[in-house]
């Protein structure tokens, strides 16, 4: 098997995540799709690390995880705040940018 298969998998997962962000309305699912995209890139980083024979890719992946963790914490807090005021977790309801 060729190592690049991991990269293809990564690309496919990334794309699926992107579609999920655009198509789903539930804010939490959208958020999970974002996580899926991040994970897909992590897989690519790890594979790059292996291809190039150094650990930079793994370290980048590590930082991605940390940042993703922060993002999850803040993002979920925002979702809770919106839910508290609007009683809805649908991102289409929060379309205040229109007005």
């Amino acid at each position, binding site marked *: *098997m*060729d*190592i*690049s*298969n*991991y990269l*293809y*998998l990564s*690309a*496919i*997962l*990334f*794309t*699926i995540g*992107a579609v*999920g962000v*655009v*198509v*789903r*309305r*539930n804010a*939490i*699912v959208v*958020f*999970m*799709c974002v*996580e*899926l995209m991040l*994970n897909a890139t*992590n*897989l690519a980083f*790890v594979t790059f*690390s*292996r*291809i*190039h*024979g*150094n*650990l*930079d890719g*793994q*370290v980048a*992946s*590590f*930082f991605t*995880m940390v*940042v*993703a*963790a*922060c993002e*999850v*914490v*803040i993002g*979920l*807090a*925002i979702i*809770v*705040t919106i839910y508290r005021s609007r009683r809805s977790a*649908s991102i*289409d309801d929060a379309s205040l940018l229109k007005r």
Partner: protein
Amino acid sequence: MITLALESGATATPEAVLFWFLAPLAVLSALGMLLVKKAVHSALLLAWVMVTLAIFYIAQDALFLGIVQVVVYTGAVMMLFLFILMLVGVDSSDSLVETIKGQRATAITAAVGVGGLLISLISRAVQAKPAVGLKDLEIVGNVQSIATELFTKYVWAFEVVSALLITAALGAMVLAHSQKPIARNLQRDKSIARFRGASLATAAGLPSSGVYSRHNAVDVPALLPDGTPAPSSISATLNARGNMIDSKLFELELKEEEEN
């Protein structure tokens, strides 16, 4: 430690088996995330994808990351997701009917384009490039190697990221903390207000309405010690409606009875 990497771009057969078994499952799970109605199912499917990826990390000589993936992502982050799902309503299912015209078709077209181009680019990039592999570095161990990298080359990024984490924790606390716009008027506050007020006349509460044996006395004012009626003893609403009955009325009857 599972060391499956070979010198060239190809991998050992066990890894291939692992990949071809798990990768379709991961893709299917990811697709399932988009298609199921309930958010909690999506979360479970995502957890499975993450576990799969963790296995792939370990298979690719990234033991530390694989463990972290399981602990941080599948453990903590997904936990957090489920927690919030419970807050928002775990059994609510979403409608999958698209409301924005052309959104879904455009999204899928664009995504297919992105995916296709990415795969095409990757295939072009990796052509005839042998993979180096991480064999040499594995002598000291994966965790030690990453630690060396983190605390030497990437120490500044590491510190900055730690600051980011703390900021995020504080931010989440601030966001999640709900503050009432108006202070609630509790009994304690009312009591304090009564006694701190200008007049102490009503501090102990208003007098109750007069009680006469012959009348349901909620609309008859009580009599003060000097015999005059106290309008404050009956509801202001009754007073405003004009439903207040003069207490003299009953006084008079009493006197008549006495005379009789």
